Each structure stands twice: as structure tokens, then as C-alpha cells.
């Protein structure tokens, strides 16, 4: 099990409301003629922490990229925060400003300082006054423990610091849902922990999170539900304890034995 996670959250302290945050029903997606997502049904309630695992090419990244419409789905419905994702660009922008996303390769804006990276969207999308946006940004930079880097450019930071800035940048929009697309896959082992710690803190505060990751330690410590995908389908979903100790599907067992076996 990964040593990067040293603490786990107490499920009894966490509240998951009945309110639905994301509703995906009978969703299908093709890349050309390749059927990449097949008949996905997924309901996420507010306050849930979901980890999506699976072999590469199983469609897990594509699934969360559909949730903020970085990818378009061709059949079925996706409703985020009560707004259905259609080709209506206004709805898409609205959903995107309510859903934060953290990428594998950080995707910070290299021509802007850390602070400008964090204030850009609040100022231009939310129309927050600059001063207020900067104050909020400093708050979140403190939360991810790098306020002293505010004046630097992303190219001057380490990978772990960049990813924490990326998390702060998303949080500055005060999103209701956070999506993480393999946030630690491009990081050195020494830096994975600092990013996971930030994410655990976020989970403790009750953020609705969907996280695609290979960090099974994180899944056990944080998730209330683990989803296993293969060949574009949801093969198994369960609470972390049963998922890791008592998986039902043969495919899941094989996957777990491969990633936990060594």
C-alpha cells in the first residue's frame, strides 16, 4: 500500500446529503467508431468522495472529462448541479464555473504569476473585484501551504507545488464539485504526499470529489465509494473496505492483485 497517505478521514464525521450533485444516466460516448464509454449510470450525492480506478484505456479520465464537457457525450444524459449538459454553451460555461478540475499535467498558465493564475477566473468569469479576488486567492494559497510563492511564475516551482497551485486555482472559483484527473501521476514520489494531503484536507471539509487515481492508499483513506472501470464500463462499485478486501468481480480481483501484489 502506498506510504504517501499517512492519515485517513473518519467516515462518521462526514455527512453525505440526499441532494444529488451529479446524475449520469445511460451515457455513451464514441471516439470516432471506438465505443469508449458504454452505458454509464452514476449518481453522486453532495459530500461524496468517489475514487475511480481501472486499467489505462478503461475510460475513467474520459468519464470525468465528460462531466465538465471537456469531452462531448453522444447519448444519454449528464446533469450537473441541476443543469443538463447540452450543446448550449451558456450552460456549459455555467457548469464549468461550478466544477473545479485538476489535471495530471497541472496546466497552469506559464505566462502568469501564481497569484494571477488564481485570480484570473474569479475576475473575468465571476466579475469579482481584483482586491477581493486577490485576498481570496491568498487564502487558498495559504491553505495549500504555498502563500510565499504567490509572486513567482509556475516554471519556477516544483511539480508538487505546481499541482497545489492548480488545486488552489480551482478552489478560487469556489466550486461545488472538484474533479481530479490523475493528479499525482506526473509527480515524483516525494511530492505525491503533499498533493494527497491537500486533497485529504479538502475531503475533510466536505467537498464533493471525484478522483481518478492509481493511489489505492488514498482511496482507502478518503473515498466513501470506489468505482472500478474496464473497457468503458463500470464493472464494480463498492465501499472501500469491501472493494479492497472482498471484491465481487473477477476482473476487479485481477486488477487489485496486479497493482497491490508487488
Amino acid at each position: 500500500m502506498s506510504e504517501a497517505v499517512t492519515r485517513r478521514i473518519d467516515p462518521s464525521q462526514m455527512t453525505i446529503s440526499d441532494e444529488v450533485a451529479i446524475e449520469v444516466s445511460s451515457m455513451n460516448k464514441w471516439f470516432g467508431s471506438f465505443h469508449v464509454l458504454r452505458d454509464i449510470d452514476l449518481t453522486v450525492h453532495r459530500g461524496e468522495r468517489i475514487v475511480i480506478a481501472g486499467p489505462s484505456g478503461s475510460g475513467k479520465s474520459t468519464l470525468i472529462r465528460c462531466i465538465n464537457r471537456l469531452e462531448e457525450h453522444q447519448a444519454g444524459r449528464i446533469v450537473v448541479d441541476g443543469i443538463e449538459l447540452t450543446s448550449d454553451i451558456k450552460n456549459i460555461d455555467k457548469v464549468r464555473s461550478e466544477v473545479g478540475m485538476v489535471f495530471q499535467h497541472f496546466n497552469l498558465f506559464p505566462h502568469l504569476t501564481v497569484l494571477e493564475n488564481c485570480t484570473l477566473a474569479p475576475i473575468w468569469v465571476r466579475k469579482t473585484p481584483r482586491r477581493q479576488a486577490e485576498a481570496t486567492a491568498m487564502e487558498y494559497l495559504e491553505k495549500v501551504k504555498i502563500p510565499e510563492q504567490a509572486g513567482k511564475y509556475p516554471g519556477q516551482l516544483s511539480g508538487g507545488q505546481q499541482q497545489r497551485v492548480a488545486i488552489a486555482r480551482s478552489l478560487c472559483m469556489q466550486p461545488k464539485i472538484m474533479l481530479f484527473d490523475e493528479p499525482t501521476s506526473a509527480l515524483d514520489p516525494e511530492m505525491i504526499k503533499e498533493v494527497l494531503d491537500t486533497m485529504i484536507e479538502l475531503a475533510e471539509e466536505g467537498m464533493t470529489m471525484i478522483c481518478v487515481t492509481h493511489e489505492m492508499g488514498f482511496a482507502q483513506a478518503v473515498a466513501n465509494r470506489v468505482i472500478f472501470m474496464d473497457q468503458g464500463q463500470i464493472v464494480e462499485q463498492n465501499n472501500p473496505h469491501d472493494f479492497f478486501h472482498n471484491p465481487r468481480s473477477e476482473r476487479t480481483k485481477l486488477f487489485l492483485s496486479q497493482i497491490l501484489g508487488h
Partner: protein
Amino acid sequence: MSKTSTRDAAFFRETMLPPEPPPIREAGAVKWLRENLFSGPVNTLLTVLGLAIIWFLVSHFWDWFAHSVWNADSLAQCREIIAATWGEGARGACFAVIRERWHQYMFGFYPPSLYWRPLLAFGLLMVALAPILFSETQQIRRIVLVATTVATLLFMQVLGVPTAAFLLSAIVMIGATILAERHAGWLLIFSALYPLIGVFLLWGGTLWAPLMVLAGIGLGWLGWRLVGIVSPMLAVVAGILVTLIWWIGFTGEAAGDLQNLLPLGITSVQSEKFGGFLLAITIGVAGIALSLPIGIILALARRSDMFLVTSLAVIFIEFIRGVPLISLLFVASLLLNYFLPPGTDFDIILRVIIMVTVFAAAYMAEVIRGGLAALPKGQYEAADSLGLDYWKAQRLIILPQALKISIPGIVSTFIGMFKDTTLVTFVGLFDPLKGISDFVRANFAWKGIYWEPFIFTGAIFFIICFSMSRYSMYLERRLQRDNR
């Protein structure tokens, strides 16, 4: 402990090694010579060959330069002086032609009593550019503006500008420099107004014309506000339409009527009088200023998802890049007259500027498209995922980075375009290289003089183009963000 042999299986280090400076090897000129000029037999051979070529060139041209004559009234007189001073059969350059005709190389046939107007226009051009190109520090802007003011006034002094015009120019230039010191932000307003001021100074005529052009922008704004109440989407279209209709349909007449009511203005100068570097710089600056935004729009259009927009952009770019600039200039000078209603006076310089702009914009679009393609897809996705709409993402995230990547290509296009302005000689305009030189040679005194004018115009082109190149390198350094 540190001397432990690697053959001992167990090894541990108690103290980490501190960094040390590299060993001092032989240094200085000898080392440089050996490494760069004589590192091997091939390198040595090439060095000797290079030196031989340089010697050949210098030995052949040196006496020609050394025997230059600067004071003479004609080529014949030049030759007499050279023969008298350096002996029969000696060669020498006759730069006296530059001394006598340099103002024509600069201004063409612009009325000499009005030389102050293009000079002031050029000085103010630098003022208008200062907040855009020289905004890094107050100090750089100060150096540029003071140097411009001094150079402008010095040229005016040399050219014997009337005292009143000199005083006016001095007040304007010094005022602008002081303004830049006190309220640098106001300079941007001046930059926005400069196209009107520059055109008014160069061509003169009624003051009502630029005022009516401004009125068009005001009317467009009014239209935008009024329609904006109904639909924000339509408002932009309405604003642009109102402005264009006013400019095309009414500006000329309105300016004429107002001029009759209240004559206001300065001596008008026809386009035929423009020539030399005044013409090249006018076309070049207008072309540069217009081709960049048009090129950006074309590049974005070419990468757009909308089939029709993409197709139109591709057709436009490939067509314009596929024909020689001269053919476009011929279209401007000859064909447009057939299509325009008889009697319309569509200024020849304006027509040439349009064609040069269109030509440069097509190249610009491809250069910028290269920059856009070089950006990682993640930048687009990050901008999208934050909820930025298309135009905001382009303006704040994509274009600043893409344009920075494209700076070398953009400036190359600018330099190429500026040099191509000499091609206007083929539509009867007096470019500095051929148009003015032919005119100078048409005078019996300077018949047969070729090298000296070419060297002179070539040197000025080189200075301007080299400055652009150096500026682009400075800009690249200034925008560098990833140095630790």
C-alpha cells in the same frame, strides 16, 4: 571515511560534500582562438579561407570608399576631383549626390516648407508607440521619448523649418514627454488617436475629416448602447454597422459641408507628392499596424470549428500567399478603377496600403497559427475548465502565449513587408530605392550614378530592419518566464 574503496561492500557518507568551483583551465584569448578558429585541420582551412575572402573584399572596395567625395555639384565634377586628388584612373565614391538630394530620399516631393509635418508625425509615432512597445520601465520610455524629441527637433533645425512650426513641434514633443512622466496611462489614449493625428499631419486638409471619423465611432457607440437594451449579441453588430455606414457613406460629405460652414484645416498635400522613406515608412507602419490584428483573426478563423469560417480563411490565406505582391499592387492601381464607380477618387496610397496589409496578413496568419499549434492542449482545457468563454480564453490565455512564441516569425514578416514597400515603384509611386533614384538620375548632373544611392538607401533599410530584429530579441528576453 571518505577514502573508502568501492570494493568494501558497505559504504556510508557522514558529511555531504560542499560545492566547489570548477578547475581553472587555461583561459583568455589564446584558448578562444584555438577552440573557435583552429580546433582542427578543417576548421583551420576554413578560417584561412574566410580571412582570404574578407581580404579580397576589403582590398577591392576600400580605395573606392576612401576616395569618397562629398562636396560636388555633379558626377562629372566628382570625377574631376577624384582624378585631381588621387591621380588619373583612381576610383572613388561620389556621395555628393546624397548630400545634395538626401531630403528627396527622405520626403520625395513633399513641399519643403511643410517638412515639419512628416517629421512631427514621425516623432509623435514614437510617442504613440511608447506605451505599447517601451512599457517595461519608466526609464526605457524616458530614454526613447527624450531621444525622439531631440532627434525630431534636430532634423527640423537642419532642414530649416519655419520658426512657428518649430516652436509648435517643440511644445508638442516636450509636452508629450512630460505627459509620459506624469500620467503614463493617458498616453494610451493618444496612441488610440494617433492614426487620425498622423494622417491629418501627413496629408493635411480639413480638420473636419478626422473629427467626422471620430464622430463615426461615437455614433457606433450610441448604436451599441441603444441596441444593447434589446440584445447584447446584436449590439456589437449594430455598433460596427452604424460606424461603417457613417464612414463609407457620410463622413466625406459631412466633413465637406462643415468645412464650407467653418473652414478649419491645414494645407493639403496630395499622395503623388509622397516619396522616399516617407512613403516607405507610411505604408510600412500602416501595414504593420493593420496586418497583425487581421492576421490574428485569420489564424483564429483557420483553427475554428465552424466549417464555413475555416474554409473562407483557408481560401483567403492560400490565395493571397499564392500570388506575387506585385500582382496585387497592379490590381490596386489598375483594376480597382474599373470596378469603382467613375469619378471616385480612391487614394492610391490607401489602395497600396490595403493590398500590402492583405498580403502581410496572410503570412502573419500562418505564423500565428504556428504559435497557436505549439501551445499544449492542456492550456485550452484549463481555460475551458475554469469557465472562460472562447474570446476570454483566447485573449487572456492562448494569444499572449501564442504571440510570444511567434515573435521571431511575426517580426520577420514585418521586416519582409517593410522591404517589400519598395515594390510600389511598379505602380508609379516614388519608393526610395528605384523611384527616387531614377528621378535623381534623370537630372543631367547625376546621370549614371548607381552605387552610391543604393548604398545609402540600403544602409537606411538595414538600420531600420536591424532595429526591428534587435527589438524582437529584447522582447523575447523580456517575456521569458521560465528562468529560475
